[in-house]
């Protein structure tokens, strides 16, 4: 397992732990404040994770990127579950801003995976040919 995968899996576990906490919460003010703090913290670390792994991912080979994608997809799946949990909270309005910040980070992860799958691991001959032509200019 690579260092990048370890970081992704560690964050996925943190994400799952936070889900259990949010699911167990009720509509008491102290619980709402705690949920807000947990989700805000999670969003910050989500953003930091993507920023942090980007330089390492830039240096991976096509095969290494292909091997990393399943871990990222697992994290995405866990994150989407968290989005569903947040959206179903009867007191979603009380944590709306925090939930929106979290959605933004999940969308960033989706974009990250989309770019890896479509541009770093795909064998698009035409794209390679165009860049090859530019190299010759």
């Amino acid at each position, binding site marked *: 397992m690579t260092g990048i995968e370890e970081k992704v899996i560690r964050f996925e576990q943190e994400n799952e732990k936070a889900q259990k906490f949010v699911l167990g919460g009720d509509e008491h003010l102290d619980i709402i404040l705690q949920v807000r703090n947990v989700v805000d913290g999670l969003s910050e670390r989500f*953003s930091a994770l993507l920023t942090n792994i*980007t*330089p390492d*991912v*830039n240096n991976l080979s096509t095969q290494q990127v292909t091997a990393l994608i399943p871990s990222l997809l697992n994290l995405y799946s866990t994150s989407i579950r968290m989005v569903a949990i947040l959206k179903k909270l009867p007191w979603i309005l009380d944590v709306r801003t925090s939930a929106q910040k979290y959605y*933004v*980070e999940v*969308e*960033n992860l989706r*974009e*990250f995976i*989309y*770019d890896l799958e*479509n*541009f*770093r691991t*795909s064998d*698009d001959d*035409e*794209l*390679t040919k*165009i*860049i*090859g*032509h*530019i*190299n010759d*200019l």
Partner: protein
Amino acid sequence: MDILSTSTFREAKDLLIKRPENGYGSCCKDICDALTDLTFDDIYNLHFLIRETGDIRIIKVRLKNSFQKIGSSSGYRLIILGNKKYNHIALLKIYPKRGKYGQSDLRDFEYKELLKTYSKELVEKRLVLHNLNNDLTPIV
């Protein structure tokens, strides 16, 4: 290192800044803030690599939108091309993630179009040089 742009980039940028009420008025400043004083390697290490072949690197830069006080996660996406042989960075496209002109991704055919335009304008010497210290003003 020179900062150049294609006509596609300039059209996208002009559309964004045309109406300040759309909330994209700071895009030139935000680009300058993100790229000023960076080397090729800094840009490569800080931002997402889309594709690299030979001397060419296509990079996606996540930018804040300071006008709307939005961080880089949901601000702009700037697609640039680093050409080591010519020692320049070419701005190929900018799009916001949110708002009237919000877009989620660029498709592969869009990247191909951006690269073909760059290639054509490089040959025809139609790439425009910009001043990063002055809100991306073209240098004539």
